[in-house]
């Protein structure tokens, strides 16, 4: 029997604030631009929104701040922060609130000006007790420790990590919205400046500005709106640690739990999924999530991504917008995974469109591999 949340909400509108560099703009201004675009996309009005799900890296109370800025008075809101995966979790929360009738039109939104505000990752994070004194560079050193362990246990190579960055760039070359579209080779990645061994500058995501928003409703309302609804088929979250030193095993993420639970809710298996959007803050992420979500065996992720398998024309379509590595990364990338999956299912992706895509997976990661949230979306015929 289908899970009671399967198919109970849909993305009806989506929008982004274009261009990765927006001097003179605040994060909340970019968020509002994306909301404007998402409303125009679905034909709803700002005051139709009565459910608000927003998180940023700079607001201690993001829901009231965003609600006030937009001038809306939501009946239900959530601004919880579990890192960049928060927005994938918000899609689950919005589905619950819509299905329960607590709200009728839910907005999930994000904005950040971290590129022009200083060019570094903006974080509200407190210093990690028992870690801060050692001067690890956050978050990269934490991901470097995970990559080093993966290389030690499974023989994963820097060239395999680089293959992830090159595949992402090849997708970005097909996406006019992507921030980094210059040609990139494995050698370029291997020769780029080392930051925290074994991760070099080109193993790291971009630092851009950006804003993103989606509008969700129940399926009955969605059918009356202009765009083909992108239906929620399932989502699940899991977190096992906050600090990297408390991660039980640096090669095994909680996506091992969020993935299967999501697939069970959606009633689909890996082979049913046409397109994957994985939170690639660093090259090691893509390898870890391909393994932990079940697309290859543990330890085989490095070999799996070689030879263009996840690049355009490869066997598996992964991060078709160019990902956080080459498309956009304003500090919290999660909502962009959902937006790209939705665009693929709408069939509006132009040169990078996956033909006949019906089921898409969007996976969010937060903190230092700390929180994992998986979601699966489908076209009407998958209901």
């Amino acid at each position: 029997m289908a899970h009671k949340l399967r198919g109970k909400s849909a993305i009806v509108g989506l929008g982004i604030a274009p261009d990765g560099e927006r001097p003179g703009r605040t994060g909340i201004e970019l968020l509002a631009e994306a909301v404007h675009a998402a409303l125009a996309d679905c034909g709803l009005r700002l005051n139709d929104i009565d459910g608000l799900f927003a998180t940023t890296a700079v607001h201690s109370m993001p829901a009231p701040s965003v609600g006030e800025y937009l001038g809306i008075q939501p009946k239900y809101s959530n601004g919880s922060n579990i890192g960049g995966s928060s927005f994938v979790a918000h899609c689950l929360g919005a589905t619950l609130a819509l299905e329960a009738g607590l709200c009728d039109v839910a907005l999930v939104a994000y904005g950040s000006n971290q590129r022009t505000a200083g060019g570094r990752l903006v974080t509200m994070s407190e210093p990690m007790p028992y870690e801060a004194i050692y001067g690890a560079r956050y978050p990269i050193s934490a991901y470097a420790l995970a990559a080093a362990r993966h290389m030690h246990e499974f023989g994963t190579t820097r060239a395999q990590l680089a293959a992830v960055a090159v595949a992402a760039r090849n997708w970005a070359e097909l996406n006019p919205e992507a921030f980094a579209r210059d040609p990139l080779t494995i050698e370029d990645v291997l020769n780029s400046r080392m930051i925290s061994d074994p991760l070099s500058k080109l193993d790291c995501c971009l630092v851009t500005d950006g804003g993103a928003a989606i509008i969700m409703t129940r399926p009955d309302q969605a059918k009356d709106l202009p765009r083909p609804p992108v239906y929620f088929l399932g989502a699940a979250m899991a977190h096992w640690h906050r600090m990297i030193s408390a991660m039980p095993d640096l090669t095994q993420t909680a996506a091992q739990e969020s993935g299967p639970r999501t697939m069970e809710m959606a009633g689909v298996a890996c082979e049913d999924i046409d397109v994957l959007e994985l939170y690639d803050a660093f090259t090691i992420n893509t390898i870890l999530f391909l393994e932990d979500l079940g697309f290859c065996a543990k330890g085989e992720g490095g070999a799996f991504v070689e030879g263009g398998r996840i690049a355009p024309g490869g066997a598996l379509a992964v991060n078709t917008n160019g990902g956080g590595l080459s498309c956009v990364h304003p500090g919290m990338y999660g909502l962009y995974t959902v937006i790209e999956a939705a665009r693929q299912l709408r069939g509006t992706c132009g040169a990078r469109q996956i033909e006949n895509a019906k089921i898409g997976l969007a996976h969010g990661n937060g903190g230092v591999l700390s929180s994992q949230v998986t979601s699966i979306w489908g076209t009407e015929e998958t209901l």
Partner: protein
Amino acid sequence: MTFASPGPERQFQDFLAEGKFMIQRNIKTGAFIFYPRVLSPGTGEDALEWVEASGAGTVYSTTVTRQRPEKGGDYNVALIDLAEGPRLMSRIIDIDPHEVTIGMAVRAKIGELNSEPALLFVPDKKDLSHYGP
């Protein structure tokens, strides 16, 4: 039970300032705990005692944080599995940070970072594997 003041985090720091590396042990299960807590993580027992750690550990993972020489140069950040079981973050000193390898035996050494007492680790001299074949 009554909870003594100060709490475990402050007690750990005070021990460190006295030159002692102490970890907690769950009196009922015997499990060692780091970082210090009020309750045994995952099981909830509050009967915990402080014991001096052996100081022996193994490098679980390691990274070299690159830094320009004029800012102090490259330095190591590592995760250490203590002989008692728990894992923690630290820095391996008294060795070129690029020479630290996963699996290397290390030993605790209390030193200072940023003028504060800090738990550091040095290569265990009984283990010569890091000197190469």
